[in-house]
């Protein structure tokens, strides 16, 4: 494994990590503050991507498409919250799993009916379509660097929002003890709506952001949803900081594992055995990581609830 390859894969890992963070941040807050399992968070990411593609078709402008996609995602999130989720807050986790699973089935299929089963893509803005020479022998697409930058930017913004604003304070308080916050006279319903809207918006933003580099297709959110769950469980439910650290960890472990597991195994196993076991190990690595974290720290790395 050359240094250049390692560097490229590390950047790819970071990219997956920040996208996971955009999805996981909303998920962990919804989970932590409202104790609500939202399986439909992945389809909100998918919708963001489709919104961006559609908006670009209408406006032919990438920034406008991004802005419209974020707005539409927020709107869909608020509608879902008001129509369905609001009625499920006090309910059993199982009810929430079942209802949001139903929403996944519906929205995935609705996307397939509206846009077809084939993958769509969004053309990249010209200004960002080039590659940057990071070191000798290492060219990296500018757009992917922008994705990483945007993800980290949103992370910083969320950090400020959660740790240094009044709403953020309430969100943190809600994550550690929601009934108490409510008892102190805070309109918890409104707080839930804000958290939910921001979560949906972030997931939609992630979808729109990756539309030029990933295939935009129905079910594109399903696998990322599972990864996002792994992230928030490792990071600690309700903790944005935990979600950030765990996203990068999962992104890096998954990407580097897939690239180098066979190479590493070749050190201890025969070549053919390593080629067999490598992919299996790589694709299960993050789940092993999660099981290990849960075993030793059942509440995750940065538990929000003391």
């Amino acid at each position, binding site marked *: 494994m050359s240094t250049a390859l390692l560097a490229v894969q590390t950047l790819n890992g970071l990219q997956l990590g920040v996208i996971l963070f955009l999805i996981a941040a909303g998920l962990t807050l919804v989970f932590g503050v409202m104790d609500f399992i939202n399986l439909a968070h992945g389809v909100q990411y998918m919708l963001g991507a489709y919104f961006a593609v559609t908006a670009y078709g209408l406006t032919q402008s990438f920034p406008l498409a991004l802005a419209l996609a974020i707005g539409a995602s927020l709107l869909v999130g608020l509608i879902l919250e008001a129509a369905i989720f609001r009625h499920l807050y006090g309910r059993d986790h199982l009810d929430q799993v079942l*209802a949001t699973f139903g929403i996944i089935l519906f929205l995935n299929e609705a996307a397939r009916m509206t846009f077809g089963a084939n993958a769509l893509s969004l053309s990249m803005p010209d200004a960002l379509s080039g590659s940057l020479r990071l070191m000798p022998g290492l060219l990296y697409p500018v757009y992917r660097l922008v994705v990483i930058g945007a993800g980290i930017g949103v992370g910083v913004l969320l950090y400020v929002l959660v740790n240094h604003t009044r709403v953020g304070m309430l969100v943190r308080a809600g994550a550690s003890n929601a009934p108490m916050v409510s008892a102190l006279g805070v309109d918890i319903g409104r707080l839930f709506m804000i958290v939910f809207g921001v979560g949906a918006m972030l997931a939609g933003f992630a979808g729109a952001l990756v539309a030029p580099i990933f295939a935009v297709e129905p079910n594109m959110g399903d696998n990322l949803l599972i990864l996002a769950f792994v992230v928030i469980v490792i990071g600690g439910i309700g903790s944005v900081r935990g979600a950030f650290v765990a996203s990068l960890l999962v992104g890096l472990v998954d990407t580097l594992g897939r690239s180098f597991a066979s190479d590493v195994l070749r050190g201890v196993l025969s070549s053919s055995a390593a080629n067999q076991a490598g992919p299996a190990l790589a694709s299960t690595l993050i789940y092993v990581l999660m099981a290990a974290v849960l075993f030793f720290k059942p509440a995750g790395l940065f538990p929000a609830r003391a």
Partner: protein
Amino acid sequence: MRGIAVPMDSTSPTATEPSRALVPVLLFAALALAPLLGAFGAERYVLALLTRCAIFAIAALGLDLALGCGGLVSFGHAAFIGIGGYAAGILTANGIDDGILLLFVALAASGLFALATGAISLKTRGVHFIMITLAFGQMAYFVANSLKAYGGDDGLTLANRASFFGHDLLADNRAFYYLSLAMLLAVYLFARAVLRSRFGRVLRGAKENETRMAAIGFNPYPFRLTAYVISGMMAGVAGFLLAEQSEFVSPAFMTWQRSGDLIIMVMLGGMASLDGAILGAVFVVLTEELLSGFTEHWRVIFGPFLVLVVLFARGGLLGILTGRRHG
């Protein structure tokens, strides 16, 4: 046994209303007579569909034992179906096709996987348990994907169905259906016996109130682990049958969406009721078939239906049928 004060769940199989006692009798009678529908034509199709109902009912019963009765929300039960299926597939590919042996290996493999993953998962509670079982399910899925010698992500075709005592009993679809139904009945009676035993009472007691169970001297962990293993083995049986029926096994047997389907079956039927799990499985399999014959986009109908059930019909199908509301 009398000393254990466990609040009796109104939907438990020990409820003594005559109307409730009739439900399983009617259910099994209907399933036993259903192949007669084949007389109206398309017998092959009818039998295949009914067999699928029976197989998923076995898996749903298994999940119900852990989820409905033990309160263990496993989001990875499809893995056991896959393991049972792969046990049959891999042995058949190596020229071993004795049904009893295949079934035994399927049971052992799914039981061992349940024991290992359950031992770790049961250290966690609530949401974490859901997530860790999901993670183990995904691990099994990806391992199956990387089994290149056995088809990888394309799956594995079984050269022939299993034989029993040298007879290729399963070659006949009608015989296959009645074998599946017999296994469903066996699993059902076993699950009923388990729930009525002291073991079952402790399990349900720990679901209702763990602290109280601990106070009267029961550590729920070994009970839960045993229930989880039994539950996984039941799903393993379903996997074995599913692979034998379709003469095919693939990683698609164990996607997380399949695990979600199993939860839907148990919940739709009505939690903590074994009859409900069978009813739910039959309902889901038939509804999918019916709707997908109607439109390829059947999920657009089925999805909102699930949401409505959660919002408005909390006792599941059995609750609607018997006019009871659960919880």
